[in-house]
């Protein structure tokens, strides 16, 4: 079968010979796989990709680590002074700063609420789309794809306008409710309220991806199974819990993980809504780290904060990695 290159056509096929140490998997039944040909070719093809990723991702990742243990401010950036090693000083300073801890708590609460809202609403909409008429589904899908495609900057600008204190449509609509007067209400006067507006924008932007992916997953659920459960007397909730959900669970896990990563990384929304200068009660870990690095020019402290953020994420990513490794297993 040797789908291999013509260059190796003369080499006798090495059936099952010398399974590579890293990938000692047996060939999947019914699947053809090209023989291990000239070992260099795939690496030559991969070389440019790996080179670029090492330069712009690998090196900075290591630099992020080393930077957080150095004293690195403007003089070091301009090369007037060499960077000096300061051990754990940066971390000590951050961890003993109460402001840092309030930022951590705020980030976790913010991201947690975003993820929860995104997943629950996304799931409900996906289930709803299975029950509506095709033309309604098409309408909703168009709206979802349009909101998915909206550049974040554009979406944030529109939300800012909708929630404007004087001319915003939201205040006008709310004021129509009898006994409620929201005219002139400033949504960004307090941190929690302003962050809820930002949260709405994040969730609005994140739901389309979840709905469209989950909808695709839901079509894979065999109708017969649901029907059988229903005939056996299961209610709508029971069918969902014992039949539908277990089947789409891997998808849900994956989407939740991705949402956590994205929502912990929310930056542009806060930065833009607050006109480039988020007030202390709006700071999330991302903006806090950015402010430290590029506002105060303390690149080392900023790096340490960024690194702590990454560590915070690692727990979640570990779950995702297990899924990914499973995919690798299948390969």
């Amino acid at each position, binding site marked *: 079968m040797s789908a291999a290159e013509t260059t190796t056509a003369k080499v006798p096929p090495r059936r099952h010979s010398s399974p590579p140490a890293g990938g000692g998997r047996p060939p999947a039944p019914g699947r053809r796989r*090209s023989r291990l040909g000239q070992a260099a070719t795939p690496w030559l093809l991969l070389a440019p990709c790996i080179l670029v990723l090492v330069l712009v991702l690998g090196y900075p990742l290591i630099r992020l680590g080393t930077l957080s243990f150095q004293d690195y401010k403007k003089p070091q950036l301009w090369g007037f002074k060499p960077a000096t090693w300061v051990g754990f000083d940066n971390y000590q300073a951050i961890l003993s700063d109460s402001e840092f801890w309030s930022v951590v708590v705020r980030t976790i609460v913010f991201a947690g609420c975003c993820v929860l809202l995104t997943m629950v609403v996304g799931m409900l909409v996906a289930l709803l789309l299975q029950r509506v008429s095709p033309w309604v589904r098409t*309408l909703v899908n168009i709206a979802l794809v349009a909101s*998915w*495609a909206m550049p974040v900057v554009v979406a*944030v600008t529109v939300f800012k306008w909708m929630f404007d204190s004087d001319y915003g*449509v939201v205040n006008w609509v709310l004021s129509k409710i009898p006994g409620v007067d929201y005219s002139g209400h400033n949504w960004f006067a307090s941190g929690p309220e302003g962050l809820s507006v930002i949260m709405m924008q994040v969730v609005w932007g994140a739901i389309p991806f979840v709905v469209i992916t989950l909808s695709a997953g839901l079509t894979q659920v065999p*109708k017969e199974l649901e029907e059988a459960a229903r005939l056996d007397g299961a209610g709508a909730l029971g069918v969902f819990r014992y039949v539908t959900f277990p089947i789409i669970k891997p998808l849900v896990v994956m989407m939740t993980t991705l949402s956590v990563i994205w929502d912990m990384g929310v930056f*542009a929304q806060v930065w833009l809504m607050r006109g480039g200068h988020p007030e202390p009660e709006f700071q999330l870990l991302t903006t806090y780290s950015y402010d430290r690095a590029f506002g105060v020019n303390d690149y080392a402290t900023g790096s340490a904060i960024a690194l702590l953020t990454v560590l915070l994420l690692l727990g979640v990513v570990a779950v995702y990695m297990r899924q990914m490794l499973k995919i690798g297993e299948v390969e």
Partner: protein
Amino acid sequence: MTGTRGTGTPPLSTAAVAAARRRRNGKLGWNLLGLLVFALAAFPVYWMLNTAFKPAKDAIDPTPHFFPYPVSLENFRRALNISDFWGPVERSLIVSAGTVVIGAVIGLLAALAISRFAFRGRKVVIVGILTVQMVPLVAMIIPVFLLLNQIHQIDKLSGLILTYLTFILPFTVWTLRGFLVNIPKELEEAAMVDGCSRTGAFLRVVFPLLAPGLVATSIYGFIQAWNEFLYALLVMSQEHETATVWLGTFTTQHGTEYAPMMAGSTMMGIPVVILFLLVQRKMAAGLTAGAVKG
């Protein structure tokens, strides 16, 4: 697109048809709920268009006008006049196109390697590419900034292209791999039996089949690069800003002028939405098929 799909939806069984008929009566309520979801999801887009096309003085009427009447292009004119619009757009176009072209070439080679060759360390590469996609780019801005500073790429479009490759490249490789594994190897083999070289078989047989996927992936990557904000803000100076930063920092001495801003948003957002609508189906097919098929 259906031709390359590995798994399709299961054929509608008679039981499902019967169930659908039974459920039709309860559909009205679901449809109304669906329309509510539609309204909520579409409202910001509608409100942007509405504001952009209405006369400027209507936009700042405390009682909102729900239809742009009379339709006016005044806000667009103002948005174009307040500050240079085409400069940032041109820079964004250069950066996005540059990123996508470089990403597609390098990514295609890598995707070929992991989908068409069995080699030692293949699994490591695949897991590596998936992992790289998980790195939160926000956390990397400081060292990336220092790196660009070191190699004198601050405030240069090439520097921005280089940073954009960090997220375009892994995505391109993974998506193209998804499209590639759905092209049967037998086609290539047949071409080679008929006397094609491996390269010839790729160019004549695989590439034409891959082309739609490659286009879709490129457009999707283009949108991502076009929408990027954080690195654009950091790397480029104000006089060389790209379109997203231009829009994000759109203020005048009179404060924020929302109506021209919505016109600017429309000009930036609508082309992207149209492009996205064109490729979304293809992308979804490629991504899911790639995930299902090893």
